[in-house]
């Protein structure tokens, strides 16, 4: 998805530059701990000397599941609750940074495995398909992309 003409689900979660989406985390100046989303203090050492950090776009799948039933609304927000399709959810480990929870573009359990390479992307938010609202997700990388690494 091209990120130039879309509305993020919320401000401050991710940014799009040159068509590439990056998650906005934070890093502690004292102990180096990385957190996502960005937060004003360090969850490890309690320091408030924390600044923003754009996180890596690629990582590996640390764990996953498939959400097979429609979540209740609220808090879930879907344009058409009757049109629910199961979706993947996982934690992606960004090397040296943090494990990020995200929707996955893949919902077939046979095509997900712990350790597989993943890359950040944008997908329509369940509530915003009609009007261009997007959220972040991770997608399995293709074999060609993996060869580039």
């Amino acid at each position: 998805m091209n990120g130039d003409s879309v509305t993020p689900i919320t401000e401050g979660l991710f940014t799009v530059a040159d068509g590439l989406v990056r998650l906005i985390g934070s890093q502690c100046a004292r102990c180096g701990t990385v957190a996502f989303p960005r937060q004003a203090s360090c969850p490890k050492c309690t320091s408030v000397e924390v600044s923003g950090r754009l996180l890596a776009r690629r990582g590996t799948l640390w764990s996953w599941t498939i959400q097979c039933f429609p979540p209740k609304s609220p808090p879930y927000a879907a344009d058409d609750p009757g049109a629910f399709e199961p979706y993947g959810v996982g934690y992606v480990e960004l090397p040296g940074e943090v494990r990020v929870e995200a929707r996955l573009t893949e919902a077939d359990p046979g095509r997900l495995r712990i350790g597989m390479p993943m890359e950040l992307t944008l997908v329509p938010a369940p509530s915003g398909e009609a009007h261009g609202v997007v959220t972040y997700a991770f997608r399995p990388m293709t074999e060609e992309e993996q060869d580039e690494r």
Partner: protein
Amino acid sequence: MSAEDVGIIGAGIYPFGRHPGVTGLQMAVAAARAALADAGVSWPEIDFAAGGSDAAGNADTSVAMLGLTGVPFVNVRNGCATGGSALTMAHAMLRAGSADLALVVGFDKHPPGAFNPDPEDWGLGAWYGETGLMLTTQFFAMKIQRYMSEHGISTATLAEVAAKAFRNGALNPNAWRRRPLTAQEILASKMVNHPLTQFMFCSPGEGATALVLARGARLRAPARPPVLLRSVALRTRSFGSFEVFSPSIALESGPSPTAVAAAAAFEAAGIGPADVDIAQVQDTESGAEVMHLAETGLCQHGEQEKLITSGATEIGGRLPVNTDGGCLANGEPIGASGLRQVHEVVLQLRGEAGERQVPGRPRVGFTHVYGAPGVSACAVLSR
């Protein structure tokens, strides 16, 4: 018995399940009256009370029905650890000599279906819920998925845990799900969150539990055989633990609140996990029982597969676990579950658990609850 000892001298329960037309508070009052009657104590004698629900109102409102005695009564709302938190407070008040007879009560009444918490109540942006990440079921699925890959636990074992729960529930007149299910039926039920199927999950439900605690003279001359509350420990999460409702988790791993609370409870009791004769561990889904068995120290990580398939955790086994059917067969009224576990241990240690009584006169019991966003309470009891 020493002057510092705190014991449970009364236990009462309002059956878990669905009770149309009965409010959560009415269930709480019924459970409190049952506990008082069991203890042979009248409500005006209670000089401290604590309790709570997640979704069925303020526990202290029950004084309108129990009687306006002026008793100090603290409302507790601490997720799935509400009951354990109330127990922690009552235990501390008695140990401090600030009260002699305490009542703790937990109750709840939830509509059918998964919980739908408001992200902002949990310090998260609305986006987290809107995009479909605010589900406890996802967390448990991802935690066990990772755990299975690290410790060699099979899906068949997850089904065995649930089958045991329903077998035990069938023997418990206060349980909600009383029909035994085979492992095959559990595996074949609808997929909810891989690898967990419908019958591997408990359902939000209704029910109430109350306990009467005593110290000093009231403990030395009880109407019923007392069960000593040797210790209770409550902890929140530490850095590096993997907890529910976490948009990110640290690369560095730290002990879970369950591991820390369990270790603290065992240390304070001067009793080790190897001494435990009967355990109730939080089993909001079958993977949770597997993981919590090791996190509490009751077995080694990876040992569960053998333990469960060998029958060691059955009522007649070496370490009977969730003998009343656990959350899986009783459902999850959030405020009531933690005290239900203690109620079950009290019955078992008294030898009053009926058809599900553990043989061999169990002497030491252990309870564990875990709740969002990473809180655990553990208790060690003995007779």
